[in-house]
């Protein structure tokens, strides 16, 4: 029993990432009818926003400390971040420590801007082109973004630690009446799950309860009619693209402490997120979220040692296997609607 709960918890954080990326993919697909192969790159750029903020905050100047010497006997050079000299050592250090949560504030405008620029600059010209062209051009863009990040940040993963307050683990088992230290769960993963839940709820309520969301939903159902009613639907869809980019970016920022960002993390997640979208049902927002969590949890079950001894390596291919089964039995996906992507 405790093992099952532990695996469900372990699956939640990866599932959250899948759900957030798949949500953005579905938003873009549902509004603009474009499959965005560059969406994984947006997730990766989000993670590198966290890296950037961390680097900006730790920008330092060097001073010579005459009281101490290094191992060669020369006066030691001490690096002091500017932040610490402006706000005092304690406040400065804690600002640096909280760089990942602070990166959220940085990432939101950056990602909205990137999404806006992408849609206006590139994807806009591809609405009337065949789907194959849309896939290809976003695929090319994904390569370009990935290589640029690799060029400036290097090929190695960059550690971006979470704040000290979240570094420990939470003894979940004790809460449920199990022995201590049976079900422990890192705080940051709990934060990630909560964060993802908030974003998903926010996106859904934005679409459900605001006038803007209502118009967007109407546009998803019938773009032409909404246009004929005198609403500039293209503009709203552009904003939705920016929003989807921001969702992917935020998913990336918060994921940085869980998995040190590297330049190809986007593509790794993208392929799985596509599978998530296919399993959930193309064009269905609740389907994307549901399938994201389901597959994340399933993956963590498959990586249990008990399972691995029977079927070695199953954890790496379980998602694909599930996708195949779902596709053969329910071609429309778990919650796919009729008429969406039905050739």
């Amino acid at each position, binding site marked *: 029993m405790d093992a099952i709960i532990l695996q469900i918890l372990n699956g939640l954080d990866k599932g959250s990432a899948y759900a957030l990326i798949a949500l953005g993919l579905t938003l873009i697909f549902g509004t603009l009818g474009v*499959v965005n192969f560059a969406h994984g790159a947006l997730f990766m750029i989000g993670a590198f926003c966290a890296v950037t903020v961390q680097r900006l905050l730790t920008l330092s100047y060097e001073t010579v400390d005459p009281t101490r010497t290094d191992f060669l006997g020369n006066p030691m050079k001490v690096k002091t971040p500017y932040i610490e000299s402006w706000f005092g050592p304690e406040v400065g250090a804690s600002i640096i420590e909280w760089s990942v949560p602070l990166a959220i504030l940085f990432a939101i405008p950056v990602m909205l801007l990137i999404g806006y620029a992408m849609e206006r600059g*590139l994807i806009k*010209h591809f609405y009337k*082109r*065949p*789907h*194959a*062209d849309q*896939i*290809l*051009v976003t*695929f*090319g*863009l*994904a*390569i*370009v973004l*990935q*290589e*640029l990040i690799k*060029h400036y940040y290097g090929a190695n993963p960059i550690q971006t630690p979470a704040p000290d307050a979240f570094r420990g683990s939470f003894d979940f088992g004790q809460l449920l009446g199990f022995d201590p230290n049976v079900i422990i769960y890192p705080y940051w993963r709990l934060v990630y799950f909560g964060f993802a839940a908030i974003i998903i709820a926010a996106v859904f309520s934005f679409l459900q309860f605001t006038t803007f969301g209502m118009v967007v939903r109407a546009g998803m159902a019938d773009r032409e009619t909404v246009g004929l009613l005198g609403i500039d639907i293209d503009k709203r869809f552009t904003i939705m693209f920016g929003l989807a980019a921001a969702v992917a970016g935020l998913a990336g920022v918060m994921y940085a402490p869980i998995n040190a960002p590297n330049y190809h993390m986007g*593509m790794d997640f993208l*392929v799985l997120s*596509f*599978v998530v*979208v*296919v399993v959930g049902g*193309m064009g269905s927002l609740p389907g994307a979220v549901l399938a994201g969590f389901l597959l994340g949890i399933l993956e963590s079950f498959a990586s249990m040692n008990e399972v691995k001894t029977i*079927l*070695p*390596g199953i954890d*790496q*291919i379980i998602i*694909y296997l599930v*996708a*195949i089964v779902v*596709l*053969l039995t329910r*071609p429309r996906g778990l919650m796919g609607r009729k008429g969406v*992507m039905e*050739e």
Partner: protein
Amino acid sequence: MFGLDKKDTTLLIIVALLVFLAPFLLNPFPADSAMAQFNAGYPDLMQRFVIFGIFAIGFNILFGLTGYLSFGHAAFLGVGSYAAVWMFKLLTMNVIPAIVLAVIVGGLFAALIGYITLRRSGIYFSILTLAFAQMMFAIAYSDLIGRFVGTSITNGETGLQLTLNDPRILGESATPDGSIPLTNLFGWDMRSTYQMDVGAWLFQFNFGYYFCAVVMLIAFFLSIRIFRSPFGLMLRAVKSNQQRMNYTGLNIRPYTLTAFIISGMYAGLAGGLMASMDPLAGAERMQWTASGEVVLMTILGGAGTLIGPVLGAGFIKYFENIFSKINEATLHQWFSFLPDGLETFVVWVAEHFVGSGWHLTLGILFMLVVIFLPGGLVEGGQKIGGLFSRRKQADEKSKATKTEPAE
């Protein structure tokens, strides 16, 4: 000739001439001159030209004719390589059984994956093939099947290599002088190269290259036959309007599946040849970047045209080779005529695109081609030709060969 009409025969002969004379044509600069780095007439690169040409020709049979955009074709190339290396390990160093097995294995995998993925079309199909390729990459990279059966099948990250302990039933485990035997065709060594000095020029004639070239010509000939056959016509009909095909009562699945298997066999053939030239196989050949590369080759050359994929493959492999060789020092040398500050800036900009930045160039090229030249180099050539001769014919022809995907 060979059941081709006059135009296709001319095309085949031109391609044959270009391929056979490649050691001369690709070596226009003297060996010691500064321009020698632009020479491409050395065996390794020429082999890559024709092997990737085969890969792209096969991909074009699927994408160019049916419009189904597969994003996982490198997987078939990968399994082809593994199959061929296993043949070298177990049976003999002769390349024929290895290549035959590579083709069969490529076809089998294509049949299996095609059977599942071809249930959907359009975006779904692309995503599914991508997912399958990633799955196969994961399996090969961590040698999952090997862990399952107990012995190593793909040898994980290191890749599959020949060793001195391999059985090689019909051959020898090791040569008398204690090294691993070389791949050959009935005794003719794939690596044997005849070098010809003509003045300052050095031309290299490699047996492996000519073997690949002959295979490529056969593959090219077969693709022309497929393009001109009733089967090819049916595939084009799938591309232009699938719904109408369904309404006329035709089941298109067998046709698309056959096209998928054929292109998988071409990919397996390319993988087998690659292993024959250099007997090792690694999982990185199956990664999504490799699949993307063959898509780019086909698009760049011109999807749905006969010669396009070959041109695209040659173009990309040539520039990959040139661009990756350039480094910062070369750039400084080139731009040394500029004023100092400007030189630093130009080199700084150019540096992004050369050396390990080649993939960036590739990505940008990819986008530019898709945005501005959807018909590829062939269409570009026709447009330029049309500008000069002002004939309507060229224009109409470019329309006829334009690619529309399956909806």
